[in-house]
């Protein structure tokens, strides 16, 4: 029983790592970007997560600023916070690659990305990988990333993870 309990407790600790809890409690770049050039909303009707992401993207494609507001569970908020931290300074095509890699890694299809994308180092985004043991939370972790994708593509509709 000890073993079982330990590994179970480990799963939870993997999901709610210190880094995640820290970003959830004190989200970075939280707020509205008044001079955003791109924005998108992400809604997860299952748990009521509702995030709005704002980006200022320069002519040359560089993401100059990123912010988000809204409310959500620890995982979705931490994910949005980590996202803003990560994409500031990237250009949009790298950010889209990043999006594709994050979303497929969270789902657990490691093989889905080959070539250039295989080489991408997720850095601290790896902290989100604990969701793999919690299939119902994958949507929370990927919500902000879908919003990023749709903001860059200037889709006007809200993204939903349902």
């Amino acid at each position, binding site marked *: 029983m000890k073993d079982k309990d330990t590994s179970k407790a480990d799963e*939870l600790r993997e999901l709610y790592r210190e880094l995640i809890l820290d970003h959830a409690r004190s989200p970075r770049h939280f707020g509205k970007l008044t001079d955003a050039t791109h924005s998108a909303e992400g809604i997860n009707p299952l748990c009521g997560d509702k995030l709005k992401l704002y980006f200022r993207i320069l002519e040359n494609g560089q993401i100059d600023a990123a912010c988000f507001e809204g*409310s959500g569970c620890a995982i979705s908020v931490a994910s949005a916070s980590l996202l803003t931290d990560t994409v500031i300074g990237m250009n949009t095509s790298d950010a889209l690659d990043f999006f594709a890699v994050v979303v497929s890694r969270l789902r657990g299809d490691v093989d889905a990305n080959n070539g250039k994308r295989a080489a991408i180092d997720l850095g601290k985004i790896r902290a989100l990988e604990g969701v793999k043991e919690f299939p119902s939370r994958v949507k929370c972790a990927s919500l902000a990333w879908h919003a990023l994708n749709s903001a860059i593509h200037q889709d006007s509709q809200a993204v939903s993870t349902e």
Partner: protein
Amino acid sequence: MTHSAKVSILTAEPRPIAACRADFPGLAQEINGEPLVYLDSAASSQAPNVVIDAVADYQRHDHANVHRGVHTLSHRATDLYEGARDAVQEFIGAGSRTEIVFTRGTTEAINLVAQSYCRPKLDAGDKILITHLEHHSNIVPWQMLCKQTGAELVVAPIEQTGQVDTRQLIELMDDRVRIVAVAHVSNALGSILPLEEIIQAAHHRDIPVLVDGAQAVPHLSIDVRTLDADFYAFSGHKMFAPTGIGILYAKEALLETMPPYQGGGDMILEVRFDGTTYNELPYKFEAGTPNISGAIGLGAAIHYLNSVGLDEIAAHENRLLAYLTRSLEGIDDIRLIGTADNKASVQSFLLGDIHPHDIGTILDHQGVAIRTGHHCAMPVMDFYGIPGTARASLALYNNEDDIDRLIAALAKTKEIFA
């Protein structure tokens, strides 16, 4: 009929409520390595063996299409299906079996009333009166109807406790109100609405009342004639029956005036290209092959509920709800959402600033199944200014151990988020 034979054995020996848990195979399993604690019956209940078996037995031995055949199986299927209608009629105290319409569930029943009863008689400026605590199923059909007709949706406010402000609700009943549609029990808050008062006030002004009974039927004993409800809607899957079956009760005089909702087989007497004659009640409202096995499952669930005893169930659940509320109140940082005096079987809560979804995940990890989120009642969440709640809901098969396990799992949650 194999099925009713079985049932009479059950009715003969009333079952002590503590023994009932063993009737539900879904409860006897481990989730994430822990024995399941199922506190999500308000979303959908587990089914007892008698229901599962009634459905499987029907499919194995008695299945054919209903109402249309001269052969034995078709006759048997029809008897079982219509027998389930009789069981429903008796269960809710309807005056006649013609007043019992099988639907997919509460949602379809409410849509049927909106489209068949209300739509033809609504003018722009007419009003539909609901309350702020309704389930989306008792909001969206009316919003759609308002869009179609130019009618206006009027929403009666609720109090901080989560009870409807009855005085204001009644004051809103002016002469443009064409229907009042209210929950019997709120699924997010547990509040039991003072239906007698509401219905009396509405009838005083000649306004018909639709009651969304989805959360009431498994917990309270219902008598639609005493209530004097004009329409009463509920779902099988919240009262130990399968999914895909539900009931619209409607007074015969109202059904008589309504055009059919869907067209197709079974709801007609005669089809000619130059004019079609509709069938009698309730068949006029049951187009196409119905969910026969679902109806039979619902009939079996009713027999099961009767065998346990509705009063025993209510008493057991009330005891348990009091224990649940007390136990939750013992936790630091807990905030109870829904504290009306008169409640049934549901308790919503928040824990510190931990998001309900995170609570749900950690509880599930301990084998405790609760629901988290807006519970299809977003306006209630807006009212409290919260994104959602964690909700524990009870059924006859729950016990104090379940609640102790919930409390322990909540302690664990706090630990992780400490």
